[in-house]
Structures are given as structure tokens and as C-alpha cells.
């Protein structure tokens, strides 16, 4: 079969995470059957699930977080008492002592830590957003740095979840389903900066509420998301009480509209999708009582989804012109099921989907086609993805989308054939580039347009990162071989010349990673 390198570039970059280097043969495989290469992953639904040793369920993680918080509290109290008696305070240690020094986690021989020159000094990137945990400069010798604090269970969990996701992204063939995971996870985002529980649950939320439904039905994903403790915590629904519920009457607290509003505005109908303030308030009442069981476990296993009938607003509710009878938990589930099938939802999802994969200004005909697929298949997301890959627009539209920082870093790791053993430097670089993992600034997720990611500061930082990678890894690679893996004859003459004429392999690698072929998709 004839090789079509241009279509391979689309297959790998527009739909996937870019070609892997080494002996993967990704570009050749993609070039011989571009559509087939992309669609092959859709046939393996089980491949979307992510199970790795040590990754735990949301209730288990919730209980570990509660236990950690209790220990911190006890340690603080003991320290207070010890100040009076001059005795040393016990330190919290929610985890059993590791059999090796903790620093081993921070000095693994991974590409990215080498690159960033942050060997022993790398602190957990989930703290790197705070200025008091600044990454030291590459020039500073490790010995000069203060010894890192041991990671607590929340930081460890976050890093383990991040590592599992990154390793999966590095190893998959095309990466289309992983890109779908990232898309849906961003659509239904939570933010790990909300608090300890959100940080603890960020990875589990994606594994449990997003992944099982990425090739399933939208309505199922919607229900799983809105009933997940991480989402209920992120958008405050665990605090919301029906004003006329038993708890609402006793505790003099009441309704919080946050989750209800974002369900309709961001998750389903879209703003302007035909709902009113009354509908927001009504849905907020309908989902009162959707919460998770706390540390005492009065309404269920701690950290698991629970319906608290005492907090639920009694009575029927009118939502989007339809009355939902007082059926407790089922009232909200019925409402969500209807919202998932609303025409505005189909339109909103189709538009966002096409914008993500094809163009900032999505081609209207393609949006219309996907909307119809969504409606006809009752929100079958596999059918939606298949229709996208089958469309001509997705293959013909010019490559004007900008890779997000996450896509850029993953594509780079793949091309260099590195599977990280430690997520630290990826997390740091994501923070630097303005896309901290699972931590968007608002519930609308990270931006999805070239304008947002091709900003001056962002480009300069990408170059700095690429330059460091070049300095560390350049000596051992042949840049022209790498260009063959990345783009082959789809690479522009100018890019090829720029790389050929670089004054060193190090510089050539930096330029390759920053080339339009690697930045645009």
C-alpha cells in the first residue's frame, strides 16, 4: 500500500499523541492505513480502563485521606502538648515506612528529571505551584538544597495516579482513546486545588467516572460523574441542603446551586442551551442529598457516594418544563437522563468535540453530522468518535491546532522513547506551561484554542524546556532519524534544513521538538 506521510501526521498528531520513536514503526503503520490505525483502538474498549498496582478506589482513598487528616491533627495536638513538656512531637506517618529512603523516588534516572537537572532536589510537583517549593535551578548542586520532606499519602497518591496516566500515554499505539480520556476528563473537570480530598481523588475520578464510559454512552458518563465524590466535593454539592429537608430545617443551612448550574452550563446543555435560573434552582433542589459518606460513615462506607434522604428537598420539581416526582435519588437520576438526551446537549457536545479535534472554528457541516450521530445513537460516544474519524473534514482541515502543554510533553516523551518512572518533572513542566495536571483554573477546564496555547510566554517556556531536553539527550540521538520517526516526508523543507544545519545535535533536537510539525496538530 502506498505510504501517505501527510495522513500519518494527521492520524498520529490530530487524533493521537504523536509517533513513538525507536522501533515502534508508528509512522509507517499510520502511513499505510491512516484511518485504520486510528480506529484500531476503538475496537478495544477494555483498553481504556486503567488499572495499575497500588491504585485504589475512591472510598479507599477517602478513608486514607481521613486517616491522614486525623493523624495530622493528633500530631499537632501532641506537638502542642510537647511544647509544654519539652518532648519531641511525633510526626504523622500515615504510610508504613518505605523500605528504601524516600529520596529514591526523587532521583530516578528518568529523562525528564535529567532534563530539568532536578535530580535529588525535585520536590513533589503538586507543591510546585507554591513559591516556597520552588524548583531549584539546574546550576545549584543538590547538596546545597534542603533535604526534601517525605511525601504524605495525598502527594504520593497524586503522583502515583499521574504516573499511571503518563505511562499509559507513552505506551499506547496511537493514543486516540487516551486523547478521548483527556478530552472527557477536561470536559467534566474537577480541580485538585480544591483541597486534600480533591487532590486525593483526582486520578480515581478519571479512572472510575470517565474511562469506563469513553467508548460507552454519554448518559452513563454523566451519571457517573455527577455521583462521584470528587465532583460532589469540587462543586460543593455535599454541602447543599434542601431548604425544607429535615437537615435543612435543623441546621439552618440550605441550597448551593454550584453543581446544578455547571451540570447544565458546562456538562450538558451549554450556556444558552434553553435553561433558566429557575431550572438551575430546581435542579439544585433535585440533587440535594447527593453527597458522599464522611469519616464517621453514618450514611455509608466513608468516601463512597451516598444519598442522604435527610438533606433531600421533598416534593416534586419542575425542570425544563417537566415535573419530576419526589422519588428521592431516582428523581435526580431521571432528570440527568433527560438532560443527557436534550437536543442542546447533542449540539454542545458535538461542537466541543469537533473544536478539540479539528479546528478552533469547527466546520458546521461536521458538527451537524456528529450532532445527528449523537441523537440517533442515544449518545453513543464510540459512534461519535468513529464518525469523526470517518469524516473527510478531520483529514483535510489544515493543521492549525496547537498542541496543549500536556500533548506536547507526552508527544516529546513518546518520540524520545522514554517511559517515565517518576512523574515529577512532567508535573513541574505542566505547572510552568499553565496546564497543571487535573487542576484547571475553573470548572470549564483548560482552554482548547490555539490562541490560548500559542501565547508569547508559553512559547518561550516551551523552547526553554525543549532546549533542556536537547542539552541532556541530544548527544545520544541522530536528529534526522528522529525527524523520520516524527514526520518522515511530511516534514517541511525548512524544518529539515533547520535541523540539518543546527550546530549541534543538542540544538537540532531542541529545534525538532519545537518545529511546527511537533507543535501543531
Amino acid at each position, binding site marked *: 500500500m502506498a505510504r501517505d506521510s501527510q495522513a500519518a501526521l494527521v492520524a498520529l498528531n490530530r487524533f493521537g499523541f504523536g509517533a513513538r520513536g525507536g522501533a515502534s514503526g508508528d509512522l509507517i503503520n499510520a502511513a499505510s492505513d491512516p484511518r485504520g490505525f486510528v480506529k484500531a483502538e476503538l475496537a478495544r474498549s477494555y483498553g481504556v480502563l486503567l488499572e495499575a498496582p497500588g491504585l485504589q478506589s475512591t472510598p479507599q482513598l477517602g478513608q486514607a485521606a481521613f486517616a491522614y487528616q486525623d493523624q495530622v491533627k493528633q500530631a499537632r495536638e501532641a506537638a502542642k502538648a510537647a511544647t509544654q513538656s519539652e518532648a519531641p512531637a511525633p510526626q504523622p506517618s500515615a504510610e508504613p515506612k518505605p523500605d528504601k529512603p524516600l529520596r529514591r523516588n526523587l532521583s530516578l534516572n528518568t529523562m525528564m528529571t535529567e532534563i530539568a537537572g532536578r535530580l535529588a532536589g525535585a520536590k513533589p510537583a503538586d507543591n510546585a*505551584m507554591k513559591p516556597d517549593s520552588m524548583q531549584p535551578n539546574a546550576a545549584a548542586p543538590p547538596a546545597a538544597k534542603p533535604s526534601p520532606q517525605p511525601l504524605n499519602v495525598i502527594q504520593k497518591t497524586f503522583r502515583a495516579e499521574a504516573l499511571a496516566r503518563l505511562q499509559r500515554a507513552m505506551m499506547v499505539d496511537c493514543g486516540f482513546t487516551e486523547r478521548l480520556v483527556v478530552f472527557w476528563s477536561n470536559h467534566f473537570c474537577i480541580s485538585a486545588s480544591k483541597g486534600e480530598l480533591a487532590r486525593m481523588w483526582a486520578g480515581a475520578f478519571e479512572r472510575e467516572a470517565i474511562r469506563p464510559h469513553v467508548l460507552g454512552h454519554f448518559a452513563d458518563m454523566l451519571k457517573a460523574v455527577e455521583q462521584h465524590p470528587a465532583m460532589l466535593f469540587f462543586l*460543593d454539592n455535599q454541602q447543599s441542603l434542601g431548604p425544607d429537608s429535615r437537615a*435543612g430545617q435543623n441546621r439552618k443551612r440550605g441550597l448551593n446551586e454550584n453543581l446544578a448550574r455547571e451540570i447544565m452550563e458546562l456538562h450538558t446543555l451549554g450556556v444558552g442551551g434553553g435553561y433558566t435560573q429557575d431550572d438551575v434552582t430546581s435542579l439544585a433542589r433535585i440533587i440535594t442529598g447527593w453527597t458522599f459518606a464522611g469519616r464517621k460513615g453514618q450514611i455509608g462506607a466513608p468516601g463512597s457516594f451516598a444519598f442522604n434522604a435527610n438533606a433531600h428537598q421533598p416534593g416534586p420539581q419542575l425542570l425544563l418544563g417537566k415535573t419530576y416526582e419526589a422519588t428521592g435519588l431516582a428523581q435526580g437520576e431521571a432528570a440527568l437522563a433527560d438532560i443527557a438526551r436534550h437536543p442542546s446537549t447533542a449540539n454542545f457536545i458535538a461542537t466541543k468535540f469537533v473544536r478539540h479535534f479539528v479546528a478552533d472554528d469547527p466546520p458546521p457541516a461536521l458538527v451537524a453530522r456528529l450532532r445527528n450521530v449523537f441523537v440517533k445513537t442515544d449518545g453513543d460516544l464510540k459512534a461519535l468518535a468513529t464518525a469523526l474519524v470517518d469524516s473527510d473534514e478531520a483529514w483535510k482541515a489544515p493543521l492549525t491546532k496547537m498542541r496543549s502543554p500536556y500533548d506536547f510533553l507526552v508527544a516529546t516523551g513518546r518520540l524520545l522513547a522514554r517511559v517515565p518512572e517518576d512523574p515529577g518533572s512532567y508535573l513541574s513542566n505542566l505547572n510552568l506551561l499553565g496546564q497543571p495536571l487535573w487542576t484547571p483554573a475553573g470548572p470549564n477546564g483548560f482552554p482548547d484554542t490555539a490562541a*490560548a496555547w500559542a501565547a508569547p*510566554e*508559553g512559547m518561550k517556556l516551551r523552547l526553554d524546556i525543549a532546549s533542556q531536553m536537547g542539552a541532556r539527550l541530544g548527544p545520544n540521538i541522530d536528529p534526522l532519524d528522529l525527524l523520520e520517526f516524527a514526520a518522515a516526508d511530511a516534514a517541511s523543507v525548512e524544518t529539515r534544513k*533547520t535541523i540539518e544545519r543546527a550546530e549541534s545535535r543538542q*540544538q537540532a533536537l531542541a529545534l525538532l521538538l519545537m*518545529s511546527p510539525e511537533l507543535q501543531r496538530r
Partner: protein
Amino acid sequence: MIDCVENRLLTSRRGLLLGGASFAAWAYLPKFARAADGRDPRLVVVILRGALDGLATVAPIGDPDYAGLHGSIALAADGAHPALMLDGFFALHPSMPEFTRMYRAQHAAVIHAVATPYRDRSHFDGQDVLESGYAGPGRVQSGWLNRALEALPRGERVSSGLAVGPTTPLVLRGTAPTVGWAPVALPQADDDTAMRLVDLYRHRDPALASALSQGLQLEKAASGDDMKPKPGNAVAQMRQVARGAAKLMAADDGPRIAALAFDGWDTHANEGGPVGRLAFLLGGLDGALLEFESGLGDRWRDTVVVVATEFGRTARINGTDGTDHGTGTIALLAGGAVKGGRVISDWPGLKPANLYEGRDLKPTTDLRSVIKGVLQGQFGLSDQVLAQAVFPDSAAARPMKGLVA
């Protein structure tokens, strides 16, 4: 939604980076001066993302309905943390002593019961209207501040705006050139590699060429001894961002116009009153204003800082001691060029019948009038340009007179 968003901007410990004249240098940005009176005006736009509770920041303590509506989080003129009375009616949040000082020195003003033309409650559309300057939301890829730059005469006048942060806020996006800066800590790519890449982009991808060149030019101007990392929290980070931006803007050849955004104002639950979460954030904002004042030095005299947010919050607290998305709120002005010491408001009152949709402070002032007044006072833009180019179809929102001294 997000309790106290951690600011993602990291601080710099880089030295001077682009020492030579490798690029069309930063220093070539035209100097901006008003020939007529020798002033060298500067404008900083601070966007508070998440919708600030204006009633909790500048409290209408004299309104008989305020205390009841704002309930447990209402400010009061007495008690352990008394609000600072601005006049007989309005009082400022106690965590803003610097703004109070500026106000008393007549270098700060409040505009109350203000809103953009947007009347719904989506953050993202609200921010879109606030920053695009259009009357309604849409996918407009340019902002009013960029179009104001475009409208300025060329030559001696400013030609470039400064976007602070890793991405350019919409308000500064558009065809007029902008430069971006964020404090960071990374070893730097060398000039030669950067030049080769810019050259490749010029041939293959002009948009990337322009973005990258701008990013490269800015780095050296912002770095300096006082940008070393310091321990701190969101409050310290707001100050650091302001300090870096002020340093850039204080330079003779620095940008005259900057935009930056602080996140985290979406106080749905446990908003707090005189102390608590909102108080913490307001303290950060107050510190950022102080950094602008001290960092701009003599230039503060010609500066206006506009603080605005996409909309307000419900007048009545919700069931979780917070507030939901509302309409009317405040805008703040600070700077030596502000004709301050005033709360400017056509106060609508907080009686149930006076609330917008029975929920929100009713807006009586169009935020565009306030911004137009500032742009006119600082840069002399005409009514017509403001009504057509900067804020399209906004003739009805007349520029507010006398905001700038």
C-alpha cells in the same frame, strides 16, 4: 467552585538573558508620552476571575436591608474587625488598608452597582463580555484593551501591551502587538537556538514566530534581584506578580498598558465576612495594589489601575454561607492619576423590589462607561472611537467624566 486557587505563576531566579541585540529589542518599543502636558500615563487592568462579591467588599452599611441579606457574612462598622467607613454609607472591607489609605489620599475610588451589559450568570460568558468589550458573548478573539491600543496614534505612542501570565487574557488579545511575561524558573534556551527557531517559524508559521519573539524579548526586563523566590501563599503570589509587572512598567522603555488576572473569587460556600476566605483574597489584592504603587515609584502619579470582575453575586447569602452568581458589583480605581476619595454610585437600594430578578444588586452604572472614562482621561480617546472600535455599539454608555485627575 475553587477554594483559593493556587496561583500557578512561579517566580524567577533568572539573570539577564538576552544580553545583546539578538532580537528587535524590547528597548525599541516606542516611548509613550502625552505631548500636551508631558504626562506619561499608564494603565493596569486587573481582572478578578470568579465574580467578586461587591457587597462584601464595599458594603452599603447605611442601607437598612444590607445586614439582613448578607447575614452572617455582612460587614459592620463595629465589632472585632470593623469595616473602614468610606463615607456615611459605604464601608470598605477591613483587609484592604492600603486601598483605604489611597482612597483617603484621594488616589482611589469605588464605583458601585456596576455591571457589564451581560445579564446572565455564566462565568465564561460574563468574562467574555467583560474582556471582549462586546455587548454579548461570542467567539470574538479580540479584547477592548487591545482595540484601545490599536486606536492610539502611532509613533511616539505606546505600541505594545503587556499580558502578565502564561497565556494572554482575552482583553489584550487582538491585532495590536502585545508582549507577555510570567515569572518562572527554568534554565534558558540560548540565543542562537532561539534565533534559528524564530527563523524557521518565520518561513513556516508566522503566528508562532510572532508569539515566540515577543516572549523572548520580555524576559530580561522583568528579572532582577528582587524576584527571588520567597515563601508564601496566594497572597504573596499576587504581590509577586504585581511587583514584576510594576518593574517592567516603571522602565522608561517599558510597556504602558498591562492586564493581569487573579483567580479564585467564586465564593459559593463559606465566603467569610471580615475574616475568612474572601478576606484573604482581598488582602492579596490590596497587597498587589501596594506593589504597583511602590514599584512604579514616580510613575504612580500618572497611573490608573482598574479592578473589574465579570459580575457580582447574589445579595442574599445562600444556604452554605456563601453567595451564588449575581449581577451588580463594584469596580475599583487606584493610582495617582485617579480623582479619588469618592464612591460613585447611583444606589438602587436593596429592598426586595429593587433587586435585579429579586436576587442581585441591580446595576445602575455600565462598566463600559467607567472604563471609557478612564481610557479617555488617560489616553484622550474620542467618544466615537470608544463607542465604535473599543466597545462596539456602545454609544449609549457615555464615558464617565472626571475619573482621571
